């Protein structure tokens, strides 16, 4: 993975000094809250429901064991002993004090980490595929391009006062594991007919109040024009994105209102101009970054077979271990979704344990997924059993990847001042209802996602089953949607009908799974059966029970 040079280190160190000074000026009264708020947001510091919340950046979801260990130590030293892994591959701490925030940022710089631009109206953490560098189906590792974009976007003077937040995802395979088309800009690294690498750009995707799938805006941008083209996209957005209405300020609204073709025309015009300005790093810069993401020193004689005699291990092996491009190796997902647990939360001890496991079993590398789990990308198959035993002992061995128990849930009204309803207790109830491994196995792949409000941080629009918390005259209520998907076949979920209370929605989810099981053909997943038979049979079953408390 990328290592800072002295310039990168100097930049994060300077940022800490800057924020320390800004914090002092706020506490002493030289800055009002309105003036300070954008500054602290651009250092990841929210004023949240219970206290300040700090969102630390984990660039494209990649970190090493030293970094993971510091994240655990921060939870103990400055917070209440745990952290929350988010749907954008970051980590959040919920009980931060303003006057300690600069010290936390200083601690982070010692392991090349930061909280730069993890909030605010600017370009946010650039996300990527959690299997990057390990998956057999990728063209190249997407992360060098994400790193180039990370540096370009950090402290960009023209783009730190955008109309709204801006989220970019970079992938390099046709299997989209990063929900790329639901981002403000999505980039897929591709090859053209001449065999050259380049970037295919999508713009105007997003969730929230008005979910949209990003249209493609350019089929191929040569790699030595990547920054210039990105800059053109952002400049058009900065100039013409709406600033009159916070709920219509994302680029998806601009692309929708202009129409894709007009947005493309404006970007191409700006792009042609910017090509004359010399803002593109030389290709030598990409060539400098790429080797940091070279393959680890695989043991090429590692055996490809695994002893499956332990049935619990076999279950976990089949569910949580994904094929690696290198024979003898496996991509392991550590589930942060134990039955009845809080999705994405990990204690400081668990975080430090995962750091050690990354060091010992995965060439000192870990990933955070946007499904709020942790990945060890390069584990020898011969080590899987020992690894699993250690995970099991720490409550990290749940075998439910991409099953109904692998719930994505935003923090909801328990933690978030934007929320209308709590999402975590609902996730816990659903998790418990479907706890039995046989039940989960029978249902198979089912991505269930819960958002506590329309901001959709739980990505419910992209859930095979999606749940949205709403405020119904001061009482929590939940809407159910079906048929969303975030992969290459991106689709947005459709609402079933009237909402439910907390118990009602758990029953409704179960009713939906029963319809699937009764109707599935061959190897269909829940999503496939839904797409084949449509909403009606689900609706009938869901609303056939006693009066809905919606």
């Amino acid at each position: 993975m990328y290592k800072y040079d002295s310039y990168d280190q100097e930049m994060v160190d300077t940022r800490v000094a800057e924020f320390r000074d800004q914090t002092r000026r706020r506490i002493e009264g030289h800055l009002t809250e309105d003036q300070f708020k954008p500054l602290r947001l651009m250092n990841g510091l929210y004023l949240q429901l219970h206290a300040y919340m700090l969102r630390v950046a984990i660039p494209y979801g990649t970190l090493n064991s030293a970094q993971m260990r510091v994240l655990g130590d921060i939870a103990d030293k400055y917070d209440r002993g745990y952290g929350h892994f988010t749907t954008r591959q970051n980590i959040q701490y919920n009980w931060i004090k303003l006057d300690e925030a600069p010290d936390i940022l200083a601690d982070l710089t010692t392991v090349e980490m930061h909280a730069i631009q993890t909030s605010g109206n600017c370009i946010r953490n650039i996300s990527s595929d959690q299997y990057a560098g390990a998956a057999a189906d990728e063209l190249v590792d997407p992360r060098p391009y994400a790193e180039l974009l990370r540096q370009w976007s950090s402290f960009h003077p023209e783009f730190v006062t955008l109309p709204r937040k801006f989220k970019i995802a970079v992938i390099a395979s046709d299997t989209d594991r990063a929900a790329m088309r639901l981002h403000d800009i999505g980039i897929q690294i591709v090859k053209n007919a001449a065999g050259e690498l380049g970037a295919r750009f999508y713009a105007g995707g997003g969730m929230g109040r008005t979910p949209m799938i990003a249209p493609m805006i350019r089929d191929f941008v040569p790699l030595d024009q990547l920054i210039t083209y990105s800059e053109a996209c952002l400049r058009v957005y900065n100039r013409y994105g709406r600033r009159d209405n916070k709920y219509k300020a994302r680029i998806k609204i601009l692309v929708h209102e202009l129409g894709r073709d007009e947005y493309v025309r404006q970007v191409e015009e700006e792009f042609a101009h910017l090509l004359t300005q010399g803002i593109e790093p030389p290709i030598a810069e990409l060539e400098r970054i790429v080797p940091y993401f070279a393959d680890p020193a695989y043991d090429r004689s590692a055996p490809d077979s695994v002893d499956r005699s332990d049935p619990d291990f076999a279950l976990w092996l089949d569910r949580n271990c994904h094929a690696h491009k290198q024979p003898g190796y496996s991509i392991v997902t550590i589930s942060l979704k134990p039955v009845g647990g809080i999705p994405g939360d990990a204690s400081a001890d668990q975080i430090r344990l995962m750091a050690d496991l990354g060091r010992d079993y995965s060439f000192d590398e870990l990933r955070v997924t946007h499904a709020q789990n942790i990945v060890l990308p390069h584990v020898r198959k011969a080590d899987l059993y020992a690894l699993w035993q250690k995970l099991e002992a720490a409550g990290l061995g749940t075998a439910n990847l991409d099953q109904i128990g692998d719930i994505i849930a935003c923090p909801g009204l328990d933690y978030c001042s934007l929320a209308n309803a709590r999402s975590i207790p609902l996730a816990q109830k659903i998790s418990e209802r479907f706890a039995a491994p046989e039940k989960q196995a029978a249902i198979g792949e089912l991505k269930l996602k819960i958002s506590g409000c329309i901001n959709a941080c739980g990505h419910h629009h992209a859930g095979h089953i999606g749940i949205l918390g709403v405020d119904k005259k001061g009482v929590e209520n939940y809407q159910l949607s079906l048929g969303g998907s975030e992969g290459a076949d991106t689709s947005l979920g459709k609402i079933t009908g009237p909402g439910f209370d907390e118990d009602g929605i758990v029953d409704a989810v179960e009713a939906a799974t029963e319809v699937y099981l009764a109707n599935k053909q061959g190897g269909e997943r829940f999503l496939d059966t839904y797409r084949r038979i449509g909403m009606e049979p689900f609706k009938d079953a869901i609303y056939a029970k006693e009066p809905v408390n919606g």
Partner: protein
Amino acid sequence: MVETQLRFRSDEPVGDPAITVDNFGEQTNAAAVRIEPGDDARELLPYLDRLKLVEVNFPAFTDGRGYSAARILREAGYQGELRAVGDVLIDQLFAMRRCGFDSFAPQAPLDPADAEAALSRWADVYQATADGSPAIWAKRHG
């Protein structure tokens, strides 16, 4: 008229009143113009040789359109005074300088020591803008 508090030019400031972009084209001897957030800075490109002062208004510091306007003008070769006016605060000064602003007329006076600290804090930058500062990638690759 709000006083210019910070100025990074050696020439004499022009005293002309800054007129609106709409009116500018018609007044063939005008040398100063004021850009509002909704104006298109490119409308001024035919007149760059006679422009001595461009004011860019920031009614709210959170409206960042003026940063693009400034860069567009500098990229087009504008060398006159480029002044940020309005809700101009300490913590945006450096980004404004990077976008090409060389004078500042904030509606509320700025603490000079804070301003100096903000402007001299960053030794390096990740991006190339028309301000001429070499980006880190340029320093890395000579």
